[in-house]
């Protein structure tokens, strides 16, 4: 990996209004950051939304990006959680085309990762797994040997541990 590139997880509390997402993504694009994943959901207060953004780029300018994000009027706050101890989750759905005789092996893998089968048909099975992104990566690498038809990941969401605010 390019040493000038590193991955960061940023959480934002933003106004729940149209156009906010564009204003935020513009800040990343202008400084050459690529957004790897982005999760938006309504907050417990309906006026605000939560965003968790995983982005890759030069760490030297990330600090500047966080400040620029905080300057956007619709952003209540933006925080970089990289390196902090946080609760982190992601969910993935994986559809495999597998003949019936291979299914037992796959069930074993699913069980090991505490995943589940979300859908089963004559020629395919759809698996569901939740956990840290690394756990999903690990399961994917084991499933690589089978015929993966489709894969969807939600992107990472995080929450600060203990009494701390995210």
């Amino acid at each position, binding site marked *: 990996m390019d040493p000038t590139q590193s991955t960061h997880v940023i959480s934002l509390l*933003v*106004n729940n209004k*149209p*156009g906010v997402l*564009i*204003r935020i993504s*513009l800040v990343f694009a*202008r400084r050459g950051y690529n957004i790897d994943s982005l999760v938006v959901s309504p907050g417990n207060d309906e006026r605000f939304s939560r965003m968790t953004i995983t982005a890759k780029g030069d760490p030297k300018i990330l*600090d*500047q990006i966080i*400040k*620029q994000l*905080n*300057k*956007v*009027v*619709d*952003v*209540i*706050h933006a925080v970089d959680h990289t390196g902090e101890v946080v609760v982190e989750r992601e969910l993935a759905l994986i559809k495999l085309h597998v003949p019936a005789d291979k299914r037992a092996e796959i069930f074993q893998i699913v069980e090991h990762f505490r995943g589940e089968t979300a859908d089963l048909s004559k020629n395919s099975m759809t698996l569901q797994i939740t956990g840290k992104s690394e756990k999903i990566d690990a399961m994917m690498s084991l499933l690589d040997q089978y015929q993966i038809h489709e894969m969807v990941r939600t992107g990472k969401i995080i929450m600060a541990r203990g009494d701390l605010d995210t």
Partner: protein
Amino acid sequence: MQAKTCTGAEAIIDGLQQQGVEHIFGYPGGANIPIFDALLDSSINLVLCRHEQGGSHMADGYARVKGKAGVVLVTSGPGATNTITGVMTAMMDSIPMVVICGQTIRANLGLDAFQEADVSGISFPVVKHSYLIKDVNDIPRVIKEAFHLAESGRPGPVLIDVPKDISTMEFTPNWQVELDLPGFTVPTYADDAAVARVADMLHEAKRPLLMVGHGAVISDAGRAIMQLVEKMQIPVCSTLLGKGCFPETHELSVGMLGMHGTGYANFTVMECDLIMSIGSRWDDRIVGKAEVFCEHAKRIHIDIDPAEEGKMIKVHEFLLGDAKTVIEQINTVVEPGDTKKWLAQVAKWKKQYKLKYKKQGGLRAEYVLDRLDALMQGECVVTTDVGQHQMWAAQFCKATHHNYWLSSGGAGTMGYGFPAAIGGALAAPGVTTVAVVGDGGFQMTLCELSTAMLQKLPVKVIILNNSFLGMVRQWQDLFFEKRYSGVDMEGNPDFVKLAEAYGATGLRIKRAADVDKILKKAFDTPGTVVVDAVVEKEDNVYPMVPSGLPYTAMLLEPPKHKLEKPPGST
């Protein structure tokens, strides 16, 4: 009692009047007819521009002189997009502005309706904030928020897109509504402990220097800075946009620093052991090669925008707050200083590197400005366009009022100077306003001569006419083996006849001997006057620190050897 109903358009105009708006710079079109209709019944003066870009620069000029938001009213689609250059100019220079755009009816949004453009979308990168009003009841809150956002903290432009069916809809406005801006806070005073550390640094410094930027102008920090300077005996340099906040006629002023700063300002920068920026963002035109700028000096930065901390250069102390408030805080904890030796050195540089220019040959632009400065005595609002004349004006016209110097610094927008002078003149009734422009930039917005005439404004346009796009030609001269490309302004009109065609007075200067006489005539003639000063075609601006190079690379005069292409941008 029954609450009073009105249309959306009437509420907008009512809201503007509540904000104390005196002038609207605007141009009508299908989508804003209802707002223009409501304007008829208000006390607000409509300044009908000839092109929306000009209108937006007028609002900018008005805002810089007045210290309050300038208001622009344009129609949808092309009307709105024509303002974008002016909005970007305002954004780059932190100018408070509220731009109200007509928009197609809500049902047509996104359907490629006639004169429809996603204007709020287009505006995102160049505004402080923008609104698309979808509910008529939001009008009171949006107007209040727009002015609050535009004028507080680090100022900037705010755009409001108003669909036509919102303007015509009847409703009962609630003006008691509160602002709803949970994501917007305005820093005021700096942390006391940090102020104390800065005071220690100021006490320890042997060769301190203040750099006064636009933030100091905006917060009206001039008096506080004067107190600090006179108490501690610190010399002061000014950025292009900071000119006038600390009077350039003061003996401790060294004038403008940077790419085309005075030699003595730049030597002071090179030799200081402490530099304190008051509301400057260490722009690339100021720092040259950022990594080595004042590398051996203590660097202090006062700014109201937290995103400026560490953006361009690393500083030893960052004071977040309003420039005036922070300087007043510093003033309460600093002791008088002894800088005699340092000031003697600065005075020596002032003599040794005095601004100079050729006197022989044709008419010199610098001479015109030198004489203009003598005539103005710092008592005129001065605007510039962008290019060589801008830098010469910055060098030779000494600003003494914090809000009398208007120039497009960050954006470098050609066409800015003349319309900005119209706005400036409206904000300072009774004050003569001088627009120093080049023959290139003036032609971008000269249609506003109609506007100046209609408003009967004492705007004196001084064209430093070298029939070239002089600054680009200078770069081609220095860095591109004199291969001139696209810079010859062959085809220029006769500016005197042009002025006369608009009903203005046109005058021409061709010889140095006529400069005083004709400038005086321009000032004595009431109303709008255009002076065409036909100057030497190929003079270059010096001193010059080529873009992206350290100050040690400063050229005080034309180089005797070929120069490498500079590493910095433009």
